[in-house]
């Protein structure tokens, strides 16, 4: 095995090892009674519930519903979040006028606005997608501005010395420079979006995994509830993996 392959495997093994160690610690703490087993189920019970929730609770379908909502929210974030970020970067007056508000919005509990969204979009997937989108929007906007603003002046001067048009300057210099920071914003936006998507599914008892978690919690099926939460984590992992691949494809040197 090469040194490089070894150096890639070590963090992976350490990550999995830590996860398994944490699961074992919980199992032991619950078994010896240090954690109340009626509040937190044992990891072995959660593992045992997987088969049941997959076969009896339509997990694949619900998983796809939540993934689809997250995908739509992500696409909207990419389109409008990056678009608004670029606009605010380029029009200084707009940026000065709104940047503080956007930053304030990032810390606002937008999930509490769900009744308003229900009135506008009805009890539908659109409400859930829009709630996810709104929650993730500030992070994408702010990181897009930050990425564009971090473009070194000398790179812009190189572009100008080659007589690049404004459009070429943006696509050939500003955007590639800002891309790593924009991807950080997209990842943050996706985290906020997914939290809100599952949260709103839970609150309005509609849609995918959030609704299932609500159902299982109301039935006091705690192992099933935690098993369903694991599938939410899986959605998150898949999206992170895909954005990572996309970033590597767009910017191989990253």
């Amino acid at each position, binding site marked *: 095995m090469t040194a490089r392959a070894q150096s890639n495997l070590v963090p992976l093994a350490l990550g999995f090892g830590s996860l398994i160690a944490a699961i074992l610690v919980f199992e032991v703490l619950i078994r010896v009674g240090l954690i109340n087993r009626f509040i937190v189920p044992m990891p072995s019970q959660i593992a045992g519930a997987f088969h049941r929730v997959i076969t009896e609770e339509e997990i694949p379908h619900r998983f796809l519903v939540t993934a689809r909502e997250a995908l739509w929210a992500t696409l909207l974030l990419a389109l409008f979040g990056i678009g608004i970020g670029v606009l605010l970067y380029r029009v200084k007056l707009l940026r000065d006028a709104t940047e503080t508000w956007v930053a304030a919005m990032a810390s606002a509990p937008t999930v509490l606005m769900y009744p308003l969204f229900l009135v506008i979009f009805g009890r539908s997937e659109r409400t859930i997608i829009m709630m996810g989108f709104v929650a993730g929007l500030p992070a994408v906007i702010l990181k897009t501005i930050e990425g564009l603003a971090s473009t070194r002046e000398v*790179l812009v001067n190189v572009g100008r*010395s080659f007589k690049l048009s404004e459009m070429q300057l943006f696509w050939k210099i500003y955007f590639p420079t800002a891309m790593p920071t924009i991807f950080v914003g997209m990842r943050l936006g996706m985290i906020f979006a997914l939290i809100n998507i599952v949260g709103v599914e839970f609150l309005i008892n509609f849609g995918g995994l959030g609704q299932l978690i609500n159902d299982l919690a109301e039935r006091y099926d705690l192992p099933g509830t935690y098993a369903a939460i694991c599938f939410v984590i899986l959605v998150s992992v898949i999206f992170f993996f895909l954005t990572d691949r996309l970033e590597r494809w767009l910017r191989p040197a990253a």
Partner: protein
Amino acid sequence: MGVAHVDTAPRQAAAAPLLLVDDVSKKFETPDGVMTAVDHMSFDVAPGEFLAVIGPSGCGKSTLFNIIGGLLDGYEGRVTVAGETVKGPHASIGMVFQEESTFPWRTVTENVAFPLEIAGQPKAQRIERAKHFIDLVGLTGFENRYPAELSGGMRQRVAIARTLASEPKILLMDEPFGALDEQTRLLLGDKVLQIQDQLKQTCLLITHNITEAVQLADRVLVMTYRPGKLKRMVPIDLPRPRSSEIVSSDAFGHYVAQIWGDLREEASRGMRDEETTLQSHKS
């Protein structure tokens, strides 16, 4: 402070100037009032000539670089290339910057092919052309590396190759080796001399390094400290082709001493000025 007449080296005397800087002045508004960065500078550069502009820090060298490169407007006077007035960046002038300026997201080949891509050349053709310039700066074998995988000197050679790929009439360099150690600087100087000899490239080098200026140039223009004026034009009558070995010759030492004589006065004035400014800001 004596401002000398412009002397021109014998080998360029007969040629019509390719670059003409005619009575150029540039003022900046500062919190302390109007500051004259460049004051009535006039000089010319003949085709194939290598001119070095040297001066102490803060004398307006970089301002002059930006004016000639078309990156700075709002100045008095005129800059022309082959008789054409420079208004904004000009296709005939290729710029190499002091700071690290390679695109980190592009490989060496992609960096060097950048101006050709902008010019709309087909991919196969521009890669072929880029290879030629990569070879010229001695980076063959590193075509697919990213700048982060190269040393500072190699990255600066990529930047030079990228500028050369646009085939400018004038190569304008602003302290391109400023961030490098002395040995690398001398060796890269050799590389620049080789390239200039091969391409018969007209070059204008902005520097604060006397050794570099004498090693490379046909003439050295010494600037005064603030406001930046032409203090003296020193023709360097050293044989070509040159290499870094020339730095150990007596003639080389004579030129270095001569230029340092001019520069020392200006550098001391700059130092005193900075100290006075710092003291006045303290009090």
